[in-house]
């Protein structure tokens, strides 16, 4: 009798243990997860970190890492090898999950660790040729023994960390997902860099532009995309002259018309992915030395994309922020120079419509011949599912994607090949390696030569007093507007024909006006002979920065800090006067008039404590929509929406702008009508969302500023951060995007740096350090950066790393 009972009880026990050890759905394995010794509780930081010594097999000499009060590591090594090995070790210690997650994503391997839900994303990643591009980059780096040594040493450091982990030590996210870290291979560094190219240089609107030409005619494109607003203020000042002849490729006689209404896997860059940087020279500063500022705007996550670090070894002493997975400092300064970056949205991604000979896709038409394709088999492992094999066909343009018809007709499939700068072998690491060691303008120019993508506006300042900006990257030489529409894959005239020569790339050194700046706007004035793109950021941030810098004198770092938090909205300043003029006050209720009154008395600053910014932003977007939506809704095809800065200009100047009339109604609408109805609609929507007009309408709340966890694990992010700013303001905080690192550096005999990012050094959600700088970031506070010339005497703690065979 007892045996039966014992057996039942035993089976029940076993079943419960097995169930609690299994990952069920999104939940981690419960028993394993709650175990106080090996589960998530083990990741709770319960004591302050203390100093210690550690053997690292493979080190050549001793390395000491000093952690300051914000836990920023200052790595002091005796040679390059040890420096980068220690960087790999230290970064992995703080950010291992982030490093792995980002490279799994770049390699199209997310389904392998998460499951079938991510398969589609992985397939797109593969079809875009991300792993292919990373392999090409790796080939390039192998040819450069110095850089290969750097990434190998870094990988060695990361693996040294991984190898000493027991499952109880795994970072928290590994326990949530029930996975283990894998070996870090050098190619992961190139994958990570390709991921940045995807984030920053994959914007394309080929299909939308082709469709818009078909639907609205080329006048529409000319009016809204080719004509730039009066207020446009290019990065390279228009006073710059170009003393060269551009050797432009020949354009086709007539523009190719693609199989329209087909959907390309478009990548629309969200507003807020952009950046600011500027440098003022000594003539404008109180100290007489240049001051450099940079705030790259990205999708914000916890842990932050950036990690502060100081790298000190013979021949190098650099401080700044690094990307997890890439050796060296990416944005920062050393004893002699400082540098920063913003994105250049040049068109380095084109789609080609491909004609195959037959269904086997073994040959395609190009230049009047049938040419052979190649095929790359992508093997995608799927957690909890069968491995998926995906054959990706390559033409000389690049990988081919089958395009589904959005009209649903029974048509022949359409194929598009992708030509993308990310497929070119590259060695960007050499640029950062060089910048970390640069001592002069010439060193900076030398370092920039090696850089291909994603193209960046590199600003520069030196102790010698030089300031400079290079619109830096490898740009295909194109005929005007080449690649803005879907290209003809059979006609060689659409192929990329070489590159803009190095000396012809837009750049400027020590301009008369005493400053350089960039905010993703157009690179150069219309007289610049090469075509880069027709779609740069609106003029707003760039112009505001230049307005301010032109007026400023005796500038201090405090002035520049304040400027980074500037929240003046050019969009409001240009559109609101019109809206207020057009709105029909007699049609408003008393309550609506009260709101209008607040908006009327507003100074266009997007301040958290004010109500007017919230009303304006929603009103402006409803107004914009009411102008265009009726026309745009008449087709299923994706169309290109006019940029808001040009829109404001046209609607202000033309009372009879054709889009204003609603095509769905019998009467003829006017700006007055749309301004009034969109205002009423806005107040109704906001009342529904935030209650009646009052404190709950403050911009700091309506801005809806969240920083989610990297893998969007609930509870691991920070929600509803009350803050000022907007994407058309210098302080481009908005929604989930914004300044991911704010840095101000004053050059001089004692270079001084200030900085903050929304996060903390530690990537462990169980550490108070994890999000320790978020509030300082939110309010615009910068920390003085501890840049040591020699090993410091005071520090929070230090870690001594030694070769394992030493005594």
């Amino acid at each position, binding site marked *: 009798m007892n*045996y039966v009972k014992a057996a039942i*009880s035993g089976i029940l026990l076993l079943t419960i243990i097995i169930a609690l050890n299994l990952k069920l759905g999104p939940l981690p394995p419960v028993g394993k997860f709650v175990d106080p010794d090996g589960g998530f*509780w083990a990741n709770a930081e319960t004591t302050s970190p203390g100093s210690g010594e550690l053997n690292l097999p493979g080190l050549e000499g001793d390395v000491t890492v000093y952690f300051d009060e914000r836990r920023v590591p200052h790595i002091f090594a005796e040679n390059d090898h040890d420096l980068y090995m220690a960087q790999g070790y230290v970064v992995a210690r703080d950010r291992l999950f982030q490093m792995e997650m980002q490279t799994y994503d770049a390699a199209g391997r997310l389904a392998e660790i998460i499951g079938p839900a991510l398969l589609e994303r992985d397939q797109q990643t593969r079809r875009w040729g991300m792993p292919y591009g990373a392999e090409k980059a790796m080939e390039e780096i192998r040819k450069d023994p110095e850089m290969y040594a750097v990434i190998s040493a870094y990988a060695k450091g990361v693996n040294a960390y991984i190898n000493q982990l027991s499952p109880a030590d795994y970072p928290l996210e590994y326990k949530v997902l029930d996975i283990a870290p894998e070996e870090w291979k050098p190619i992961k560094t190139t994958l990570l860099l390709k991921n940045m190219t995807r984030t920053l240089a994959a914007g394309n609107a080929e299909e939308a532009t082709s469709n818009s030409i078909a639907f609205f005619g080329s006048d529409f494109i000319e009016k809204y995309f080719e004509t730039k607003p009066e207020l446009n203020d290019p990065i390279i000042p228009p006073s710059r002259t170009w003393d060269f002849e551009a050797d432009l490729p020949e354009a086709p006689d007539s523009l190719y018309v693609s199989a329209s209404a087909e959907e390309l896997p478009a990548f629309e860059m969200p507003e807020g992915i952009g950046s600011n940087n500027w440098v003022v020279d000594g003539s404008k500063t109180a100290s007489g030395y240049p001051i450099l500022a940079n705030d790259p705007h990205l999708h914000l996550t916890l842990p932050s994309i950036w990690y502060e670090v100081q790298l000190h070894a013979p021949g190098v002493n650099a401080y700044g922020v690094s990307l997890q997975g890439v050796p060296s400092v990416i944005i920062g300064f050393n004893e002699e120079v400082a540098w920063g970056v913003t994105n250049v949205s040049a068109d380095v991604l084109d789609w080609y419509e491909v004609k195959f000979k037959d269904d086997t896709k073994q040959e395609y038409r190009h230049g009047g011949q049938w040419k052979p394709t190649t095929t790359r088999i992508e093997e995608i492992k799927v957690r909890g599912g069968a491995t998926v094999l995906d054959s990706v066909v390559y033409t000389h343009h690049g990988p081919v994607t089958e395009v589904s018809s959005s009209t649903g007709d029974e048509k022949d499939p359409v194929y598009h090949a992708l030509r993308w700068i990310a497929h070119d072998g590259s060695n960007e690491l050499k640029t950062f390696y060089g910048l970390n060691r640069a001592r002069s303008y010439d060193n900076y120019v030398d370092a920039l030569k090696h850089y291909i993508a994603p193209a960046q506006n590199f600003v520069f300042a030196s102790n010698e007093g030089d300031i400079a900006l290079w619109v830096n990257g490898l740009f295909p030489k194109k005929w005007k507007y080449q690649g803005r529409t879907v290209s003809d894959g059979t006609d060689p005239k659409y192929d990329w024909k070489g590159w803009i020569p190095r000396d012809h790339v837009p750049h400027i050194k020590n301009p008369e006006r005493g400053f350089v700046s960039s905010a993703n706007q157009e690179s150069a004035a219309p007289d610049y002979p090469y075509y880069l793109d027709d779609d740069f950021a609106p003029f707003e941030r760039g112009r505001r920065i230049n307005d301010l810098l032109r007026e400023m004198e005796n500038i201090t770092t405090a002035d520049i800090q304040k400027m980074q938090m500037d929240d003046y909205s050019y969009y409001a300043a240009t559109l609101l006067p019109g809206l207020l003029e057009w709105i029909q006050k007699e049609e408003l209720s008393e309550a609506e008039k009260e709101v209008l009154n607040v908006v009327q008395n507003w100074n266009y600053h997007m301040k958290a404590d004010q109500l007017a910014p919230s009303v304006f932003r929603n009103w402006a977007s409803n107004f914009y929509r009411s102008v265009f939506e009726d026309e745009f809704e008449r087709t299923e095809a994706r169309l290109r929406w006019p940029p808001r800065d040009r829109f404001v200009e046209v609607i202000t100047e033309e009372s009879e702008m054709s889009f204003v009339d609603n095509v769905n109604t019998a009467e003829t609408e006017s700006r007055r009508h749309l301004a009034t109805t969109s205002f009423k609609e806005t107040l109704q929507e906001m009342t529904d969302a935030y209650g009646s007009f009052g404190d709950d309408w403050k911009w700091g709340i309506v801005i809806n500023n969240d920083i989610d966890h990297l893998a969007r694990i609930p*509870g691991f992010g920070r929600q509803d951060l009350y803050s000022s700013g907007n994407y058309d303001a210098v302080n481009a905080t908005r929604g989930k995007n914004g300044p991911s690192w704010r840095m101000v550096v004053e050059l001089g005999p004692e270079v001084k740096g200030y900085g903050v990012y929304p996060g903390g050094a530690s990537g462990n959600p169980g550490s108070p350090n994890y999000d320790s700088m978020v509030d300082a970031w939110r309010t615009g506070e910068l920390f003085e950066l501890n840049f040591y010339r020699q090993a410091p005497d005071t520090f929070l703690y230090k870690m001594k790393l030694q070769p394992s065979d030493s005594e």
Partner: protein
Amino acid sequence: MILALAILVLAFLLNLLLPWWSIAIPGLIFGYVFNKKGRASFGWGFLALFLLWGGQAFYIHIANDGVLSSRIAEMLNAGSPFAVILVTAVVGGLVSGLAALTGSLANSSPRLSSRGK
């Protein structure tokens, strides 16, 4: 009482070295050795790990200022860090209680009313 204490001490030691499910081993051993009635075996076994895991979790929660337990509470939609501590304690208790029960049932020798006091 002694049964619970014995399980608690051995489970604590085993858990330091072995995977989490090792907490079932003390229940099986001492449940058999002490050979109490089913209900009592389960109860003491449950209590031992409820106190051990719950206590450890509570200690970590305090030492960590609740930074992690609050995040996990939000992740699991558990409402409060204390619910997370309670889940931890109950999971430990359940496994250990069942183990002690199984151990006692597996012992076929006659149960003396005076044993195990």
